[in-house]
């Protein structure tokens, strides 16, 4: 089990990556959000047995990690902790789908293994895209981009509020949890009774905090919107970024680049 402090540290590290100042970081967040969307939809639109054609899509995370100067090892580690649910479901594919699809000499590979590998590659690509979007854009900027793209303002305010208070409340929860752990011998005291009142106390404190925040905000003239100084500009660079990557994804979707390259190389050696 990960400690709450560990999770929070990891959270802060990922959050701090967005403070970078590279060409990718400076792009209008809307361009990055849209490119990520095109990327995910093209990857997901492949058929269930497609494997080789998806591999060229790794160019996108690789280039953005390079240009955005992100810590490659850290991002790779985050991606490697793939969504466990997808993996659990994927592992059943070889059990139920035993038809041999690819014959490599004496070795027959069943459709189940191919589709299982395909799910793993999909998961790596889509999860990687989400993490990289966050790392080069930052949560508040993504929210504002979504708002500009049509998300209701009330929901944007909710997201920004949540983001602001996650750190405060998670630290408070961590302290409460540590205090409980120190006072319980072995597993005694970690059960549901103490848990209920612990959460109840945390909830009441949260509630009082919300009332104080509300009064403070009213005193400062809150009318239901957050104002930001930073203005977005969707200029030529953003257009180029959006169309360049989208075109590349569509070409890669239509053309199996891995296979072309493989045919070329094996042709040379023959």
């Amino acid at each position, binding site marked *: *089990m990960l400690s*709450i402090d560990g999770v929070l540290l990891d959270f802060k590290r990922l959050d701090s990556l967005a403070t970078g100042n590279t060409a990718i970081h400076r792009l209008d967040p809307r361009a990055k959000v849209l490119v*990520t969307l095109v990327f995910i939809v093209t990857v*997901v639109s492949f058929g*269930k*047995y*497609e*494997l*080789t054609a998806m591999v*060229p899509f*790794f*160019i996108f995370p*690789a280039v953005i990690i390079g*240009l955005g100067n992100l810590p490659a090892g850290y991002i790779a580690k*985050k*991606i490697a*902790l*793939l969504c466990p*649910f997808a993996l659990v479901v994927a592992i059943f*594919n070889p059990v*139920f*789908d035993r*038809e041999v*699809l690819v*014959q490599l000499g004496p070795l027959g590979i069943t*459709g189940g293994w191919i*589709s299982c590998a*395909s*799910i793993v590659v999909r998961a790596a690509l889509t999860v990687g895209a*989400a993490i990289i979007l966050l790392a080069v854009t930052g949560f508040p900027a*993504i929210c504002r981009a979504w708002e500009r793209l049509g998300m*209701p*303002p*009330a*929901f944007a305010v*909710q997201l*920004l509020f*949540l983001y602001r*208070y*996650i750190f405060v409340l998670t630290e*408070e*929860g961590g302290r409460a*949890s540590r205090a409980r752990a120190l006072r319980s011998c072995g597993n005694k005291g970690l059960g*549901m009774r103490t*848990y209920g009142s*612990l*959460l109840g106390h945390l*909830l*009441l404190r*949260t*509630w009082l905090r*919300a009332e104080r925040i*509300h009064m403070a905000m009213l005193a400062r003239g*809150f009318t*239901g919107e957050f104002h930001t100084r930073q203005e977005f500009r969707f200029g030529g660079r953003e257009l180029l970024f959006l169309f360049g990557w989208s075109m590349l994804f569509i070409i890669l979707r239509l053309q199996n680049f891995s*296979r072309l*390259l*493989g*045919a070329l190389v*094996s042709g040379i050696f023959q």
Partner: protein
Amino acid sequence: MHMADALLSPAVGGTMWAASAGTIAYCSAKVRTELDDRKVPLMGVLGAFLFAAQMINFTIPATGSSGHLGGGLLLAILLGPYAAFLTIASVLVVQALFFADGGLLALGCNIFNMGFFPAFITYPFIYKKIACNNPSQIRLTFATLLAAIVGLQLGPFSVVLETLFSGISALPFPTFALLMQPIHLAIGIVEGFVTVAVVSFVYKARPEIVECAMEVRPIGNHPLRNVLLAFLAVAIITGGIVSGFASKNPDGLEWAIAKVTGKEELKGPEQQGLHAALAALQGKTAFLPDYSFGKPAEPMNAGPKPEGEKKKVAGEGISTSVAGIVGTIITLALAFLCGFLLKKRNQAA
């Protein structure tokens, strides 16, 4: 039980996105017009509370494992359905971005599975109906427990349906449902007890919070809500059927026809929907359509293959497979090399 991008087809993902986005828009309008603006900070801070609460574990008696609060029903009880739905959705957005729980396309599914069912199904139709105003402890316990269990049966069931309609997983429906539902029955019972514990604590300490949430918003008698519900149901059903045709085994029928007519040579399976359109484009734009790399590497779709097709795939020979593997490795290496060089250049600058 977060749904994942990797298991979704674009049709199912898009449909669920539309359903969730529509519900978010509706709830935002509701929260704006109906509720006092005290709810705004309350929703935000309670979302953060939920986030923190999900990280604190407790030991489940007699099993040795540990569990934590899910919180959908708790928020619905404290905030009412509209604000609760927005709060749950916002927590899921943060989880999708920071913890890679599922992914961005699956976000629509996750918001629907974990937000819609507790806020708009079990809270109004089970919890409110049983608990009424000013409930006794037993009534409150029973209402909460039942609502939690039903909510945690509906959510996973919709995960099963979404996975099934996407057709990426090969798990048959009965097996998958039998795996998911009993596990979530246990989770639902635990969730119910935890929610009871927290709600009754708050009820004892500050009864006005729970009572206020109960009285202020009489649910029901909203024609618009019913219209929206009907619309959502239609969207889900059509989305499900369309994507079922698009990505499940559309060639199964043709396979049966081939068996009946006894034809040896069959044309490639007819496909429908996005996969097929893209596959057709792929065929048209391929450099050398007659050579092996003009065709998709593996058959695009699942299911029983016509005999002729299968032989052809097997007979495409080792050279194609080897070419595929060599090409894949080189492409991967090239992709990483690009990233590496760009990073080097960046650091040098």
